[in-house]
Each structure stands twice: as structure tokens, then as C-alpha cells.
């Protein structure tokens, strides 16, 4: 039953707890104040100073004061009540011998009593205090962990009242001034305790019986009863004990009281308790979760075996030692069973993560205590013997402690670890195994599968989902289909998650300044789908995606330690995914490289090993693709105008595969068209049109060189290629005139390329080249440039092969032998010297 109303009683309850703790502290603290004390424990329910118990060895014991005696005078003052006695005792000193006037069975007598330092009643009161405080802190823990749960609120009320009752009402009443106050408060706590107990049992852990009785299918009387309970149950429940008290007081003002209450109230307490057990059983029967049912059965057994003996012993044996053994001692069953049920069965949806450090500390304290006890016992045993007076004795003892301490502590720690951290260890182990499985997996799909399928089982989640980055969206690659198929990439969220490098609960995002409208919308959407936590998957190289985790089964939040474990797993998953994706990419690249190698070979095969040119002419060429496949080529045209022999050299825009494909297209187009059209101008026009139709803004820079056999003139066309260079016989280099229209083929729909001619003397060489030559880069990033080209050309010999070799050598020297930035093509044509 979760609180939905506007009034939240938790702060009031906490204030009540603070006051209750203060009262209990007052009662306990008062016991330790240094006051003169005679060793008499007074009967708390008697109006006079009737002795209930005399502490053995105390001043009163030595003076012969016995149980049942009545103290009527202390220190020469007639005493009429406990407060008066306390005032009188406070005037006296510890160690002082004080005359007491005592009414015994034989009559009134004077007894000298030596006052000792006030001591706490006995071990039984310490036990009761321990129980009370234990109760209280269990209740406080439950309230803090589940402040909105009505059952936990009432449980805290029960624990607080029970603590006050135990500590204040079972206090060995002495003469202390606060006796009356704390005893009265203990009575008030006792008055409302049964109602609080019944209230708690009725709604613990949920008011399942009420739901069942209120259901349409329930019988008429049950529904009516449920309606009455809903309307006035609680006021009646809490008002009845005071009403019974008032009625009993009115009927018999001087009647016997037990813990300040008439017997009618104790009967009511018994009735409430029996009803409470019935309600507990009714609730347990209606719970679906077997774990919860087991927990409630434990609580029922603990309550029955703890509270019933206490109740019976309180009524029949209160004031006698049998009360402690029969009534108070079994009471420990209640906090033990409640605590164990909460720890073991997670009642009230509370899960406790015990810190190892705490348990280690406790174990150390226990071992230290054991050693202290052992030393004290050993000292007591050897006291007076020669062993005790030996100077080696302390050394041997200290050595024994040093040697035995750690082994004993470890022996104690092991079973504790096994018992308390078995669940956590299992989760850790499973996390490690999953992490290993993930890192061993190279198939991304399998990684995703492992993560998304096994994680929910491991952490007890409803589901997990994985979104991987696909372009500018996050696509769901695994997880329930009810989740969105894609999520937007929100940079602010991404940055935030990257900074945190951890799993983040969605509710934590709400309080952050990064929460923009888009993030808020995303959070709302995810919350609506049952997502509780979100974590990013990222490697040092890149962001991979998001992992979404649902809330846990049983509506429990993810604990901090669980989040830590899952974060580790998340990092492993990110690494595994990154590795798998890289491997996949690498595989794809290898395949591509193989394909490129084949393509390069095909491309290389397309290029003739040697070009032919008209007789009386010599030709040499070089083509170096920048990658495996290139965009440059040269070719021998199948036909030419008249008896001309023609070669072309081309540079296709784009590199690698796309450039190669374009090169193939251009090569084939030129070949195909050249068969039918020997006129270079028309050939250029047709090829231009063909390439233009390919679209995609791909161009081909083309150079055309042709000459007649025995001719002296070289005809050339340039479409986008750099100007041709003429090396004269004397080593001078000139740039040949450029045609007015030299747009690369495929750039415009219509090309108007013109053919030009240049006379060549024997020994003169014309060099055509692609822009990859002048744009070849030195290691310093400097271009090779036209000037270096001209110088290299000038320095070369008058034959095309020597020109090509010289220029290529110069480029190699310039670039330092590094891979070319762009495809590089050189073609040199010249008249042979023999003819001249």
C-alpha cells in the first residue's frame, strides 16, 4: 500500500522516533549516573516503596532488606513516595551508612544501609534495552528504506512504542526522579502498542485481505466489514484501548494495575494480538510470491513464539525472576525473525547489501572480545600461581595472541562470507563469466545476443535493450519490440553519459541541468516503456550506442552495488562490441583490397604494355595509379584519321574504385567510338556526350596525340589535360599552344574541342602528362610543379623513353619514393633521330 494522499506522516513519525529515542536514552542514561543507591528494586506498580528485588551484595542486601519489605524511611526522613525517596537519596553520599526504616513481616525496623554507587538493575535490563533498541533501529531502517509504504510507517510506530515499553516499563524501578516519568510513558506506549501491532499485521506487507474482501466476488458480510474498516477501522482500533482504560478506571478506580494498566487492557492486548495473527495469516495466504509467503510465515512464527510467552509471563509472573526467563528471553525471537525475514526474503521490498568491511569489523570486534574474555579467564585461572608472576608470561601471551588472531578471524569470516554474500558472489561470478563470454565473442550479433538475453536473467531484470549508432540515429538491434525502433542521438545526453561513464537511473537525469526538452521527452518515453537505467556503450575510439535496462522484477530499484557490477559488464560489452565491429570492418576492408587488387590487375591488363606510333615516331609512356586501382590510363586507339596513329592519355576525376570504374567506362567508350569515328574532334564530341550521360558529375581529362607515318607534324587535342610540353633538341622546353575549348569530357553536354598541330623536328619530344605529375608532393608537402617538370624535361635526352625515365626519376627523387598522391601518367612522343 503506497501512500498516495497529500499528508505524508513520515516526518511526524521520525519526530516521534526522535522523542521515543530520547525517552529511552533518558531511562538508560539515568541508570549510569553516579548516584548513591541502596540496591533496592522497587515494585513499579505499588503505590508504596515495596521491595521487588534486592541486588545481591548491595547495601540493602547486607542490611537484611528482603523482597516484600516496605521502605518507610531513609536517612531519618519518613518517605511517602518514590520521588521523595529519590530526593532524599540524592542528598546522601556514596559510601555513607544511612539508617533505613523498613516495614517487615515482623514489624517496623530500623536498618543501617551502606549506599553504593548506583548500578544498572542487572543483565536482564541490559538485555531488554538491547532488544528495545534493536526493535527501534530495525523499524527506522525499514522506514528510511521505504518511507512511502504504509506498512513500513506503521512498523516504525510499532517498533518505537515497543522500545519505549520495553525500556521504560520493564525498567528496574528505583528511586530516580525520572522513574515516574518514564514509567508513565511506558504505560502510554503499552496502551497503544496492541493497536499498532494489529494495525501493522492487518496491512503487512499489503492489505491483501482487504482487497480480497472488497472485491465484487466477496461475500456480503465480508464486503460490509471491509467497508466499515475502510471508513472507521483505524479510529476504533486506536480509541478502544483508552476507552477500555477509562471504563475500567471508572468501574474500579483503585483496582489492580499491571504495568499501570488494568487487566481489561491486557485482555484487549491479547485479543488484538490473536486478531493480528489471524490477519497476518490471511494476508500471507493471498500473496502470490512464495518468497514473500515464506517471509511472512517466519514473521508469524517469530511473533507467536516471541510475544505470546511474553504476554502470558507478564500477566502471571511479572515481578519474579521467572518473568525474565519465560517472558522476556523469548522476546528476542521477534526482532530476529523480522530482521531475518527482511534480509533473507526482502519483505517490504527491502534489499539489504551488507558491506564486507562492516562484517570484517564486526568479526574483528568479536574475535577481540573472545580474546579479551580468554585472557581474563586465563588470568583468573593462573592468578596467584608462579606462572602469573613470570616476566615471560605476558610475552608468551602476546605472541600467542598475535599468532592466533588472524587465523581465527579468517576462520570466522569464511562462513560469514558464505552466508551473507552468497547472492552477491553468484552475481559477481555470473558477471565475470558473461564478461569472459563477451570478450571471447567476435560476432557482433552474438555479443548483442549474449548481452541482451543473459543480462536480464543475471540481474533479475524484466528486459535489456541495445541501440547501436546507425548514421545519425540509434537503431534498436536487440530488445523487446515494444520499445521504439529508433532513438534520436541527443548530443547533450551523449556527452553527459560519456562524462559519467556509468549506468544512470532515469530519475537521476530529471534533476540534471542537461535535461533539455528533447532529453525530457526521451526520458518520459523510456519511462513509459519501463526503462529504469541507461548506459552508454563507447570505446576510446568512438561512441557505439546505448544500453537500456528495465526495473527489477518485484519493483525493486537497482542497488548501487548492482549498478557497479553492471557498469563493469557494460564496459566489457562496449569493448567486445568495438572489437567485433572492428573485426567486421577489417574483414570487409580485406575483401575490398582483394577486389581492388583484381581490379588493378584488370586495369593494368587494359593498358597496353607498349604503345605503337606512326613510323618515324617514337613513343614512351608511364602510368602509376595512386591506389591499387587508378583513374589514369593511356590507350592506343584502334583507328585514326587517314594513316595516322593515335594514342590517348586520360585522367578520370575520382580515385580508387569510383575512379577506376569511370576509367573503365571512358576507356571502353573511347575504344568503342573510335572504331566508328576516326575523326578525333568528333570522337571527343561523342565521348563527351556518352560520359555526360553517365551523370554523377564525373569528368575525364583526355589528351589525344596522333601523327602520320613519316609525318613531321603532331596533331593533338586536349580536354582538361595540362598543356603539352615540347622539348627542343637544344634542351629548351616550350609549352604547346592550348586549344580554346579544353573542358574535360563529361563536364558539359556539348563539347567543342579543337585539334591543333605542331611541327616537330627530329629529336624534339612532346610530353603529355596528367595533373598527378605536377601535384606530386615532397615529404614536406611541396608540389613538384611545372618548373621542376620543365627542368627535368630539359635535362632529359631527346628520346621519349629517356624523357619518361628522366621525369619519373626526378619525381621519385622529389617525392622521396613515397606513394603518389594522385594517379600519375606521362606520355612522350617524338620523331626518331634516324630519319633526321
Amino acid at each position, binding site marked *: 500500500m503506497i501512500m498516495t494522499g497529500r499528508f505524508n506522516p513520515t*516526518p511526524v513519525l*521520525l*519526530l516521534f522516533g*526522535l*522523542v521515543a529515542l*530520547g525517552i529511552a536514552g533518558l531511562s538508560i542514561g539515568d541508570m549510569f549516573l553516579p548516584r548513591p543507591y541502596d540496591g533496592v528494586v522497587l515494585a513499579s506498580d505499588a503505590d508504596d516503596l515495596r521491595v521487588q528485588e534486592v541486588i545481591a551484595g548491595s547495601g540493602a542486601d547486607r542490611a537484611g532488606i528482603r523482597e516484600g519489605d516496605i521502605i*518507610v*524511611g531513609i536517612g*531519618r*526522613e*519518613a*518517605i*511517602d513516595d518514590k520521588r*521523595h525517596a529519590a530526593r532524599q537519596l540524592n542528598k546522601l553520599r556514596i559510601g555513607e551508612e544511612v*539508617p533505613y*526504616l523498613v*516495614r517487615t513481616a515482623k*514489624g*517496623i525496623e*530500623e536498618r543501617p544501609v551502606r549506599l553504593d554507587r548506583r548500578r544498572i538493575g542487572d543483565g536482564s535490563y541490559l538485555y531488554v534495552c538491547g532488544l528495545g533498541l534493536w526493535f527501534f533501529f530495525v523499524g527506522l531502517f525499514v522506514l528510511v528504506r521505504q518511507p512511502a509504504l504504509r506498512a513500513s510507517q506503521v512498523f516504525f510506530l510499532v517498533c518505537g512504542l515497543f522500545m519505549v515499553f520495553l525500556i521504560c516499563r520493564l525498567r528496574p524501578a528505583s528511586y530516580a526522579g525520572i522513574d515516574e516519568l518514564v514509567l508513565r510513558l511506558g504505560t502510554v506506549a503499552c496502551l497503544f502498542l496492541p493497536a499498532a501491532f494489529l494495525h501493522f499485521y492487518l496491512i503487512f506487507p499489503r492489505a491483501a485481505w482487504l482487497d480480497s474482501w472488497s472485491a465484487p466476488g466477496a461475500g456480503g458480510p465480508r464486503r460490509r466489514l471491509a467497508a466499515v474498516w475502510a471508513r472507521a477501522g483505524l479510529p476504533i482500533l486506536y480509541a478502544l484501548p483508552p476507552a477500555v482504560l477509562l471504563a475500567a478506571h471508572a468501574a474500579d478506580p483503585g483496582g489492580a494495575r499491571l504495568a499501570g494498566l488494568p487487566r481489561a487492557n491486557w485482555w484487549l492486548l491479547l485479543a488484538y494480538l490473536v486478531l493480528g495473527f489471524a490477519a497476518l495469516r490471511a494476508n500471507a495466504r493471498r500473496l502470490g510470491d512464495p518468497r514473500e509467503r515464506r517471509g511472512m510465515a517466519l514473521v508469524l512464527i517469530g511473533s507467536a513464539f516471541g510475544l505470546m510467552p511474553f504476554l502470558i509471563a507478564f500477566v502471571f509472573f511479572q515481578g519474579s525472576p521467572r518473568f525474565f526467563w519465560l517472558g522476556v528471553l523469548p522476546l528476542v525471537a521477534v526482532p530476529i525473525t523480522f530482521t531475518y525475514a527482511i534480509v533473507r526474503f526482502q519483505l517490504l521490498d527491502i534489499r539489504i547489501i551488507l558491506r564486507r568491511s562492516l562484517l570484517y569489523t564486526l568479526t574483528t570486534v568479536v574475535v577481540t572480545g573472545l580474546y579479551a574474555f580468554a585472557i581474563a579467564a586465563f588470568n583468573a585461572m593462573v592468578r596467584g600461581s608462579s606462572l602469573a608472576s613470570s616476566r615471560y608470561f605476558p610475552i608468551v601471551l602476546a605472541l600467542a595472541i598475535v599468532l592466533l588472531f588472524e587465523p581465527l578471524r579468517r576462520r570466522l569470516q569464511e562462513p560469514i562470507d558464505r552466508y551473507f554474500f552468497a547472492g552477491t558472489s553468484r552475481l559477481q561470478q555470473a558477471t565475470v563469466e558473461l564478461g569472459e563470454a563477451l570478450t571471447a565473442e567476435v560476432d557482433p550479433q552474438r555479443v548483442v545476443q549474449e548481452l541482451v538475453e543473459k543480462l536480464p536473467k543475471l540481474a533479475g531484470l524484466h528486459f535489456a535493450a541495445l541501440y547501436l549508432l546507425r548514421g545519425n540515429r540509434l537503431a534498436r538491434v536487440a530488445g523487446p519490440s515494444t520499445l521504439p525502433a529508433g532513438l534520436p542521438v541527443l548530443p547533450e545526453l551523449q556527452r553527459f553519459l560519456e562524462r559519467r561513464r556509468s549506468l544512470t537511473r532515469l530519475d537521476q537525469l530529471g534533476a540534471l541541468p542537461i535535461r533539455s526538452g528533447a532529453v525530457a521527452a526521451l526520458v518520459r518515453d523510456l519511462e513509459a516503456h519501463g526503462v529504469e537505467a541507461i548506459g552508454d556503450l563507447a570505446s576510446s575510439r568512438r561512441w557505439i550506442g546505448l544500453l537500456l535496462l528495465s526495473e527489477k522484477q518485484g519493483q525493486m530499484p537497482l542497488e548501487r552495488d548492482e549498478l557497479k557490477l553492471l557498469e563493469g559488464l557494460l564496459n566489457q560489452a562496449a569493448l567486445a562490441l568495438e572489437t567485433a565491429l572492428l573485426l567486421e570492418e577489417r574483414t570487409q576492408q580485406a575483401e575490398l583490397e582483394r577486389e581492388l587488387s583484381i581490379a588493378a590487375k584488370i586495369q593494368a591488363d587494359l593498358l597496353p604494355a607498349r604503345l605503337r606510333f606512326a613510323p618515324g615516331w617514337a613513343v614512351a609512356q608511364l602510368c602509376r595509379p595512386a591506389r591499387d586501382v587508378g583513374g589514369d590510363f593511356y590507350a592506343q586507339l584502334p583507328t585514326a584519321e587517314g594513316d595516322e596513329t593515335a594514342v590517348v592519355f586520360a585522367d578520370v576525376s575520382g580515385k580508387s574504385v569510383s575512379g577506376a570504374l569511370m576509367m573503365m567506362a571512358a576507356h571502353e567508350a573511347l575504344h568503342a567510338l573510335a572504331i566508328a569515328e576516326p575523326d578525333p574532334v568528333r570522337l571527343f564530341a561523342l565521348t563527351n556526350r556518352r560520359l555526360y550521360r553517365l551523370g554523377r558529375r564525373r569528368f575525364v581529362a583526355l589528351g589525344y596525340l596522333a601523327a602520320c607515318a613519316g609525318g613531321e607534324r603532331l596533331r593533338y587535342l586536349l580536354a582538361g589535360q595540362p598543356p603539352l610540353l615540347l622539348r627542343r633538341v637544344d634542351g629548351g622546353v616550350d609549352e604547346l599552344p592550348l586549344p580554346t575549348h579544353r573542358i574535360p569530357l563529361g563536364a558539359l553536354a556539348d563539347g567543342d574541342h579543337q585539334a591543333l598541330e605542331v611541327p616537330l623536328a627530329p629529336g624534339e619530344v612532346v610530353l603529355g602528362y596528367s595533373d598527378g605529375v605536377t601535384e606530386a608532393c615532397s615529404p614536406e608537402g611541396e608540389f613538384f610543379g611545372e618548373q621542376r617538370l620543365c627542368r627535368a624535361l630539359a635535362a632529359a635526352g631527346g628520346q621519349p623513353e629517356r624523357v619518361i625515365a628522366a621525369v619519373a626519376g626526378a619525381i621519385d627523387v622529389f617525392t622521396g619514393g613515397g606513394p603518389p598522391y594522385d594517379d600519375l601518367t606521362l606520355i612522350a612522343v617524338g620523331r626518331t633521330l634516324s630519319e633526321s
Partner: protein
Amino acid sequence: MTDMKRILLLGTLFLAIVSLTAVAGYRLMTSAPAEWTTASPRAEEAFEAALSALKKAYRRDAARHLDRALELDPELAIAKLYAMRLADSDRRQQLEAELRSADLGRLTPREALLIGYALAHRDGEHQRAEAMLAEYLRAHPDDPFALDAACNAAWLRVDSEEAERCYANLIARHSNWVEAQNRLGYLAMGEGRFDEAEERFLTYRYIAPDQANPYDSLGELYMNLGRYQEAEASFRQALEQKPDFCASYTHLVTAQAFDGRPASARASVEAMAAVEACRSQLEHGFRCWAETVIAYTDGAFEAAWQASAGCPDHAHWSVLPHRVALITGRTTAAQTLEKALRATIDHYPHRAPLNRNHLAAALENLTGSWALAHGDAAAAVTHFERADRLSSYWGDLQLTLKLYNRLDLAHALEAAGEVHEAKALRRQIEAVNPHLEHAFGPGIDALVALGAKP
């Protein structure tokens, strides 16, 4: 700041404020105002010493302290009131005159009440006095002085029930008000509740072990019960505490006489005579009375008469002289004693019914004795029964008149032939004091024998 922190802070603040308020309130409530109106601390000290002495029944000491207090502060009105109660006639008149002229308005309410109450009684305005007291007690129900005055008034008018209730209330409020313990002991003893009386006197002795009166009161009880040895020990303890506590000498002598130890009793008389403070009391009647009792309980009736013949005319002590007068055949003397007692009763103030009742009981005993001595046992029974109703187990007659009279009644019943009633009564008497017959039986037997003569 989280909700939890805020609650803790507010809770602590709240507790601190409540604690401070409680402490301040407590200090305000417990700060006592000045009790007595005087500018002289030494006078106040002397007055407190006088009150302490009065509580111990040390009247002479009290008188001395009061004189000292008035010497230090002649305007200390309350001291004049107490001094007036202890002073002789002249001095009393002087002090009364001074009190009447005193400005009561400047005194504390308690002082004003006590003085006004005493003066009203002296003026005979008893109702006004009681009204003043009642009004004061409504405003100050806890004032022990006013409560004591109210209890004393009930005591004096022989309203035992009211007196017991009043003293119980006084003890409930001021458990160490020893006078109340003493009075409650006497009330219980007077009603025959001897165990309760013993507990009261033991409590009294426990509270004030340094005073003589608790031992004296306890000794009286033991004497009534025939536990003469314990009584003697208690009287001696009283005298240890206060060697000039003359009442204990008189009780010691009586106890020894009742125990049949005339020599010891006489020795005690001489010891009393050695005490300067007691000499006056001894010479003004007690020596004579002691000798009478010693001789009577010793069976020396003639000697008893001789001893009593020299006694001053003291009506209170006429029971034994009257008895020995009858036994020794001095009927005229007996008639004279009876007449004198009757006259005393006639003139005794009605405001003091306690002593008046005792005197009336004594008179009935005298009349019954006369009837018994003259053979009219039936009339004797009637008179003795009346005396029994009027008397209590404690009185001002220096002997336990009730028991003494009951013994007379038992003998009279036997003489009247009512043997069963007589036996039953004897058993009752023996249950209280098994030794009474031994001390007083011979005298009664002589009286019965006198009546049996033709």
C-alpha cells in the same frame, strides 16, 4: 538541506526549548519566599531554633531561644506569639498587648494568620478564628503551620476521626512533621490500635532519634502494654537525649511502680530531684503522687493514703487517693475528693473536652468505686461502663485510666455475678497488658471485700 536533517534540527531545537522552559519553570516554582518577618538574620535563626525546640517538646529551650530572638529583634511578632504561649501570666499579658498593637499588614500571611487566630481564640471568637484558618488553608493548603493548627483544634475538641485525617494529611505533605507522627501515635493508642501506635512512635523515633519525646512516647505505649522493661529502657534513652526531660522521669517512676519495683521507683524520684529543672514539678505534686502510686502498687494502702494526704489539691490525681481512702475506711475524705473533682469538672472549660472527658471518666470511676465499696456492684458496673466509654487508653492522668477502670469493671462484674462477661473482659485486658492485675488487683479486691461486708 534534506527533510531528515531539517527534522533532526527542529526536533533538537524543540527539545532544547522544552527543557529550558521546564527548568526555568521549576526554578520559579521552587524559589521559596521569606517565611518570617524580620530584618535580623540572627533573630530569625534564634526563632527557628525555638521552633525546633518546640517540635522536640523542649519548652524551656524554646522559651530561651524565643527570648533571644526578641532581644535581637523586638519587633519579631511571631516570636512574641510563641513566647506568649510559654510565658507566665504577666509576661503573657504584656506580649498579648504588644501583639494586639502590632501591624499585621506588614507580616507574611502565615504570621498574620497565626497571630490573628490566637488572638481571636483569646477573645473567645472561636468561630471567627476557625473561619480565618479555613480561609487561609484554602489559599495555602500546604502550609504545615496552618495545617498543624487545624489538626490541633480537632485534637482538642476530641474529634479523633478529624484529627487523624488532618494529621495524616499533614504527614502526606510534610512527612517529617514529627508532632503529627506523635499525635497520630497517641490517637492510635487512644483507640487501642497499639501496633499502629508503635509504628508511629518508632517512625517518630526514627525521624528524631536525637530528641527525648519519641522515646518518651514509645515508653508510654510500652507502659500501657505492660512491657515495663522496654518502657523503662525507652524512658532512660529519652533522658539520655535530654537529661532534664522531666516527663520521662515521671513516666519512669510510674513504670517502675507498676512493675512492682518500689525501690527503683523511689530511686528514680530521687534522680529526678537531682535535676534542677524537674525539682519544681516534683515538689508541686509529683513526689506525693509518686509515693502514693508506689505504696498502692506495693499493697501498702495506708502508706498510700498517708502519702496522698500531703498532696496538693489536684483533681487530676484524685483516683488513687479516693481508692485508698475507701479501702482505709476514710469515706468522708473520699467524698471530699469526689466533690472536689465534680467541682473541677463544673468549672472546666468546655473548649477542652479532652481533659474534661478524662475528668468525667475519673468521676464515674470514683462513683463506681464508692458503689462497689458499699456493696452495690450493679451500680458500680454502670458507672465503670460509663467511665470506659468516656476514657481512652491515653490521657492526662498519669496512669492508664481506661485499663485501670476496665479492671475495676471486671471485678465489679464478678461481684455482680456476671462471671462470663467478667472473664471475657479480663481476657481483653490481659491481651493488652498482662501485668495490670498484679499491680492494681489487690486494691480492687480490697474494695470488693469492703463491699461484701454486711
